[in-house]
């Protein structure tokens, strides 16, 4: 089954291009014919000339980033973007969500919908729609939200998985918090799940774990692409233990999103290190899984600086209160976790540490909270690689920060005139704030 991707805005297009590169490199590795076949069918379609064309639509309001992505893809020789599978205009959205959502979105909806429909018609069976965007800018966030809304209306039975990138907390775009609040509040109603990457976390991974001295945007994007590919590449799941799963997005959603109120997903992937160190490192599953488990409960987003003092509460009684009291103050409660293991000897990996009911909310049965996918094929040069996709409280703190800063700015009404100019009123802002406070409250009181 095939996944149709939508790359929105500058960030979305840069990440999308890296994602397809990583997928194509990974599938091109040794000893993986069936894996490659499944992956190719999922992400590319083959032309009569034997070329691999990505199942992707590129959308941006200004042409520079898209032309660069298309040129780099063609240069790689292994895959390329479809001719005409992109849409751009001359002038960007100016970091203004209202401009993207109220002006550019409606103006260009027909053209973009046509492109998406063409990609979908080329698929034999659709696994789902995967969009990539940032929340801080104007096009990715504003136009991206509008397009998601339209796609939800046009294809009510398809899965829509949104990957969003949250900006550096120290500031990349001044109105980033407004744009983030408006995007997330709207997406929550439209999307099936929101997979979040934070620039701060990925930047730290690049500097501390991968030892890159001068980190560039493409380094950050490569790490994000690596993490995304580790989720989306073929794997054996509980539903399909002998063949590669044909419904990756659907199964991801059933494992993780049990309630429509809880849709925020975070990703951890280990190990991550520079390619020079990789040759000298040896991993074993117990070690990797132990680290991942601690990263989960201590809300550590990368493998360094994990707080080992946080531990799961010892006994979960039927009365919810005693469980709450015995929890360590920074213990991260999960709703559901999905573990994806790729590499040598996966069958020997013991995942019981994750099945501990103390990690999960008491109102879900443990067998529904935890699932594992495996694949014996080594992923992207790492002999063993483990990814944890989790629906938990770990995104609560960054989300709370974003809402707090946006609210402070809104209290002084700064920059609001830029949004009202294009049709977003103060009422709309208040609605978005209310929606996000609701989400924060739901996750806090898990």
């Amino acid at each position: 089954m095939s996944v149709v991707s939508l790359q929105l805005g500058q960030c979305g297009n840069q990440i999308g291009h890296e994602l397809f590169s990583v997928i194509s490199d990974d599938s091109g590795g040794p000893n993986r014919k069936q894996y490659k076949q499944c992956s190719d069918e999922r992400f590319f379609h083959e032309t009569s000339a034997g070329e691999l064309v990505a199942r992707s639509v590129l959308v941006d309001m200004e042409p520079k980033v898209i032309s660069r992505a298309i040129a780099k893809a063609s240069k790689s020789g292994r895959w390329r973007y479809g001719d005409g599978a992109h849409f751009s205009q001359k002038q960007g959205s100016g970091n203004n969500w209202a401009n993207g959502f109220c002006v550019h979105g409606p103006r260009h909806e027909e053209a973009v919908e046509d492109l998406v429909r063409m990609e979908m018609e080329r698929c034999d069976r659709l696994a789902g729609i995967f969009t990539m965007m940032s929340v801080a800018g104007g096009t990715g966030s504003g136009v991206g939200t509008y397009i998601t809304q339209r796609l939800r209306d046009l294809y009510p039975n398809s899965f829509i998985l949104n990957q969003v990138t949250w900006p550096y907390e120290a500031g990349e775009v001044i109105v980033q918090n407004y744009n983030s609040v408006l995007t997330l509040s709207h997406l929550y109603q439209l999307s099936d799940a929101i997979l979040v990457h934070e620039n701060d976390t990925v930047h730290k991974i690049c500097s501390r774990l991968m030892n890159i001295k001068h980190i560039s945007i493409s380094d950050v994007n490569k790490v994000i692409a690596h993490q995304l590919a580790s989720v989306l590449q073929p794997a054996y799941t509980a539903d399909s233990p002998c063949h590669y799963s044909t419904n990756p997005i659907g199964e991801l959603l059933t494992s993780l999103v049990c309630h429509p109120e809880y849709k925020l997903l975070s990703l951890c992937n280990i190990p991550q290190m520079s390619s020079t160190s990789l040759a000298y490192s040896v991993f074993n599953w117990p070690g990797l899984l132990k680290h991942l488990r601690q990263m989960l409960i201590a809300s550590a987003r990368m493998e360094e600086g994990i707080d080992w003092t946080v531990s799961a509460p010892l006994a979960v009684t039927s009365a919810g209160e005693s469980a709450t009291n015995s929890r360590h103050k920074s213990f991260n409660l999960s709703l559901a976790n999905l573990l994806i293991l790729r590499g040598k000897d996966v069958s020997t990996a013991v995942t019981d540490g994750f099945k501990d009911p103390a990690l999960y909310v008491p109102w879900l049965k443990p067998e529904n909270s935890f699932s594992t996918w495996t694949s014996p094929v080594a992923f992207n040069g790492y002999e063993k690689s483990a990814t944890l996709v989790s629906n938990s409280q770990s995104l609560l703190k960054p989300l709370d920060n974003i809402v707090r800063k946006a609210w402070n700015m809104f209290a002084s009404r700064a920059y609001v005139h830029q949004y009202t100019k294009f049709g977003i009123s103060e009422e709309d802002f208040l609605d978005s704030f209310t929606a996000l406070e609701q989400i924060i409250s739901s996750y806090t009181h898990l």
Partner: protein
Amino acid sequence: MTQSIVVQVGQCGNQVGCRFWDLALREHAHVNQMGIYDEALSSFFRNVDQRGADSTGGKINALKARAVLVDMEEGVLGEILQGPLRSLFSSTQLISDVSGSGNNWAVGHHTYGLAYREQIVDQVRKAAEHCDCLQCFFLIHSMGGGTGSGLGTFVLKLLEDEFPEVYRIVTSVYPTAEDDVITSPYNSVLAMKELTEHADCVLPVDNQSLVDIVGKIQHMSNTGKPGCTIKKDCTIISGQGGVVKVEKPFDAMNNIVANLLLNITSSARFEGSLNMDLNEIAMNLVPFPRLHYLLPSLTPLYTLADVSVPPRRLDQMFSDAFSKEHQLIKADPKHNLYLACALMLRGNVQLSDLRRNIERLKPTLPFVAWNQEGWKTSLCSVPPVCHSHSLLALANNTCVKSTFFELRERFVKLYRRKAHLHHYLGVDGMELAGFSEALSSISALIEEYTHLESPLMPNAPRLTIAT
């Protein structure tokens, strides 16, 4: 790719404008080795073939600037028409009169505004028709004289009426206290009212800062300290390699302003890993509609002959951008409140350098409470000519209010005595109410900036959800 039109008004505006076109040609010649008319060139120039029609793509035939040049006396425009840049402009793009405005804002604004309105609208519209997607007007003028100040602000209002969707970024040269034009306070305050109401962004520059920067560079090149020899032609004030060969007085100062304009548009013209378009400047740096005065500061001022660039030098560049010596207007941002700040980097600078320096500088710069992380960043991969990297910082800071305060004081000193007023009131269309309105406008602006500095009420309580 979008296009921008430059409108230069008055003697100062046209002289700065000339330097801008010279340096723009130099920059594009440096980057565009193949002589192909590409997207970057099209933002300021048209490619015209023999018959005078636009030709897109392919080799460069003849370049015409997307500009309208206005001056009410013939001297400056005449020089342009005879100088080496004459082929850039067709004669219809130049609008001139004979006698000038006599340093009188009212004459520039009311008399000449009325007389030349049709012609100016015509020329601007023609220039706009040659554009695929017009994004921005750059208006260059001075505030102290008559034409630049009066007619310039009239043109600004006109642009807003005719092209409301196109951004208007104004570069204004403010008079200093020792200005030789006695009525410059009147002209400036009357013009300020128009700028506050009709411009999207204003980049104020003053002559004193430019003189200081030029002095500093010349001092550096003349002291000859070991390890400090400057590459002669690689300073921000040098116009070497451009079309105009003979250097005129004021050229050094005007080059700085021209570089400012080039750097602002660099990310929109050339590619980079983190692009920033012109509309993003207005969006991010203007929190309230009237507070759109952005302090520019440019670094580095010169390249040292020593080629290697250790990271400390990069960090020094960031620190310099926030020092008083590199600012283009006399003000003290560090002791006032930052409302927002944009960092536009060109050249070989990586994301990690940028983030490291933001982390380093943040504690030293006071930001307003509701915008603690008020940074907008952009990275363009094409460096300016002769430098390996450069940084332009645009800050929206409440320190501009002290500049406006001084301006108002000088205005009030003359106004109290009604000195020179009869020259203005004698002009058709100018009334005394105009003066009092302008005075209240600038007072209100100072008041708004001061209000933001007062300690705010404690953060408004967040919305709570009933559980």
